[in-house]
């Protein structure tokens, strides 16, 4: 019953959508019915293009997310632990941070071409900042007494870092990464719309050019689903790896 209630909003939207399209006062090319959209979805699914595009987009998100997160965590630990790094690299990051990844797309294409490197870089750029900020705050905010406790139990400097500081900062790092998932999806679509030959973002743009609103909506739904699945999968993974707190 509780699960059915979760599905209720979707059912309501689908019904309203269907009723509006059915009423007939909207242009069906601009406003395709759920059925027409479903038809476009099946068509793209059968041709294999939907699955290919989804896998390509998901792969780009994953690569950019993993690399951007790794860089964010590494630099975050360094800026939080070493004052000199914070004063130099940290300052630089603060200056670069307000530049939105979307604004970097043309430059990325010019410098890095239309290949995967430019797309991965855009996603990394978007992912890096929230992960860096949360790692920096998490690491520098670790309870002093927990570190003392480890030291008085005989932990070396390296052990304190890996066994105490990093796990203690874990929940901050993870929440930064969760924010970054959503940003990674924004970045991948932007990158695919303005310099790619495949992926869901490219396909949405192409459908726009040939005026296939039904295909656009189907692709958007798949994109939404991918994002939700990623978030869900990430939460599952974190709960599994860090069972002491629930995401």
């Amino acid at each position, binding site marked *: 019953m509780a699960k059915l209630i979760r599905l209720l909003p979707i059912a309501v939207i689908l019904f309203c959508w269907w009723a509006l399209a059915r009423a007939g006062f909207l242009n069906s090319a601009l406003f395709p019915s759920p059925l027409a959209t479903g038809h476009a979805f099946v068509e793209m699914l059968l041709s294999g293009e939907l699955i290919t595009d989804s896998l390509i987009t998901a792969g780009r998100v994953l690569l950019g997310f993993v690399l951007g997160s790794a860089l964010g965590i590494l630099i975050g630990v360094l800026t939080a632990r070493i004052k000199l790094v914070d004063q130099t690299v940290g300052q630089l990051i603060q200056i670069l941070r307000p530049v939105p990844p979307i604004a970097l797309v043309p430059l990325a294409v010019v410098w890095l071409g239309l290949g995967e490197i430019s797309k991965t870089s855009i996603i990394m750029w978007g992912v890096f900042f929230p992960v860096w900020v949360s790692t920096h705050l998490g690491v520098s905010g670790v*309870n002093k*007494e*927990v570190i*003392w*406790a*480890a*030291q*008085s*139990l*005989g*932990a*070396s400097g390296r*052990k304190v870092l890996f*066994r*105490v500081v990093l*796990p*203690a900062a*874990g929940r901050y790092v993870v929440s930064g990464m969760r924010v970054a998932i959503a940003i990674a999806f924004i970045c991948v679509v932007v990158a695919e719309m303005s310099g790619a030959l495949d992926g869901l973002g490219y396909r949405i743009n192409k459908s726009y050019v040939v005026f296939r609103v039904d295909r656009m909506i189907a692709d958007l739904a798949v994109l939404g689903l991918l994002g939700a699945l990623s978030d869900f999968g990430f939460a599952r993974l974190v709960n599994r790896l*860090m*069972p*002491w*707190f629930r995401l």
Partner: protein
Amino acid sequence: MLTPSNPPTQLGSHVQLEHVTVSFSAREEITAIKDLVLEVRPGEFLCILGTTGCGKSTILNVVAGFVRPTMGRAIVNGVEITSPGPNRGMVFQQHALFPWQTVLGNVAFGPRCRGLGRERSLEIARELINVVGLRNFAAAYPGELSGGMQQRVGLARALANDPALLLMDEPFGSLDAQTRTAMQELLLRIWSGTGKTVIFVTHDVDEAIFLADRIVVLTARPGQVKIEVPVGLPRPREYELVTSRPYIEIKRQLLELIREETLKAMSADIRAAAEPASS
């Protein structure tokens, strides 16, 4: 009784504080303790009693090696303390457990750090978890435990390195009265016969009398030893002790001293507050 595999009696640490001063520079310079001289004999259970903010935790932090004295030095078994080490176990006021590790992982942390094997470390940890009565909670995370249980884990974790000196910073201060009493009895039971030296900081007069061989009362900040009171009550101590005549006599004497000190500090504060107005 603590770790049956070890010989039951070891020699507790000998602690000497030689004219220790600790100042912090926050917005203004704060002197937490000033020219403190204190000696703790091997095997002695010393309670440091003082009001909030008198620097009693700072004393433990110096002996533990977390804080370096601005002046003077802390010596344990003839060696000057410059950094934390596993020969001094610490139990923190807010337990400071590792929330990402199970009870077993927390207690085994010390032995693991000292390079004992995984198996041996877990064996030691299980033994101590039994001693503090948490056998059924070895796999739980600290966040799932009550305050009293968390502090028992903190005690077991500190004991896992079998330190000759145990430092305890108001460990039972945030527990309810019944739990606190039970924890005090548990602590004495575990400690008796081990020969360990204990320095126990508290602001609770009853706790100090019940536990200590000797009580040191600190002045308000900057902390200095105001007076020392030996507690000659027989051991083992059970909680009925708190209604006995010798106990009440010691308590009366202590309370008087503390009251005197508090009033002195208050009137000094009032004088200090009045000064700018008069000048």
